């Protein structure tokens, strides 16, 4: 069981950290040039981004965190060499209802399939339920994102909504699933 002394932001091989405005834009820019990554992460049309654009996005993001107070954003770094490997967030938080949406992505193809996503999701869920005291968390996953579907099922998320034919890519329409996990359900797994 976790307690106040157990670190929220340290995992086995990864840690959550803040944005490094100097180094991170260049690394994330490379990820955005991989159309597969963009299509797994975003519903909006995939397009590559320059480091300059990402710098501006990061500034906007930190402003939003500060002003709107309904977003928590983390950079995922490997513990071994402090390398940026992904991003995680709890967003669209509605405090009166106790709801939030999760976002998680591991940027480089070589870094996927190594268990980093599982570790990151574990930490993100603990932060959402045990620190933000949310009642439920949701995740939006396109039908073709098998990695995310498997990860959601592993953590006991229930598929609650099927937005039929919500996306069009490569000449066909895809469903968009909404998954939900309640705090009791998360606690029962611990």
């Amino acid at each position, binding site marked *: 069981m976790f307690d106040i002394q157990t670190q929220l932001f340290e995992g086995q091989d990864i840690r959550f950290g803040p944005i490094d405005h100097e180094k991170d834009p260049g690394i994330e820019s490379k990820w955005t040039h991989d159309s597969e990554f963009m299509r797994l992460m975003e519903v909006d*049309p995939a397009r590559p981004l320059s480091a300059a654009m990402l710098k501006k996005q990061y500034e906007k993001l930190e402003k939003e965190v500060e002003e709107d107070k309904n977003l928590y954003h983390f950079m995922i770094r490997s513990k071994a060499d402090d390398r940026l490997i992904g991003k995680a967030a709890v967003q669209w938080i509605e405090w009166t*209802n106790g709801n939030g949406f999760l976002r998680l992505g591991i940027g480089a193809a070589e870094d996927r399939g190594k268990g980093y996503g599982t570790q990151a999701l574990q930490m993100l869920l603990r932060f959402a339920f045990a620190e933000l005291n949310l009642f439920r968390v949701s995740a939006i996953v396109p039908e073709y994102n098998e990695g995310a579907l498997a990860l959601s099922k592993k953590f006991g998320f229930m598929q609650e909504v099927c937005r039929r034919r919500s996306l069009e890519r490569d000449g066909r329409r895809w469903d968009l699933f909404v998954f939900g996990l*309640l705090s009791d359900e998360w606690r029962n797994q611990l």
Partner: protein
Amino acid sequence: MKDVFTGKLVRLSAVDPEEMSKAFTRWNRDSEYTRLLMMSAQPLSSAKAIQKWMEKEIEGVSPTNFFFTIRALDENKLLGGLGLNVISWAARESFIAIFIGEREYWGKGCGTDAMNIVLRYAFTELNLQRVSLGVFEYNPRAIRSYEKVGFQHEGRMRKYLNHEGKRWDLLYMGILREEWLQVQNGDKT
């Protein structure tokens, strides 16, 4: 081509921030109304503050947001409004939110009529493929209206809302272009 914004009971018209903000201050005092419509608790804002917000966010032309007021055909009375938000042009999908602020007009078919007008606009003018909406479990009047218009149930986010110490589900509904066309072909009026 007939007027795209006129229905049988109501018509859609442009938002006048001054008029609409005053109406909002009246409607927002009805907490049953705000709890049927809003996800989270709303402050009771002044007409001035609402007008300012509307002028900034709503007035003018946007490529993704389309706002309308709903007016009764007979007296031209302002009844409510609706907003169409295109969440993805590539996917041609939009979300819709509709509200009838004037209580005496609840349950009279105005919402259904307005929804029919805006769906026609969405599918034949904006050429969308899908319209989605969220509705609260405790709003059966709206759920019935959406079903009548052709929306299909797509699931529910469990225990999403928290009111009066109880939790309620958020229902998702969606209508595809082909489903809407079928509804039109079945209805010869």
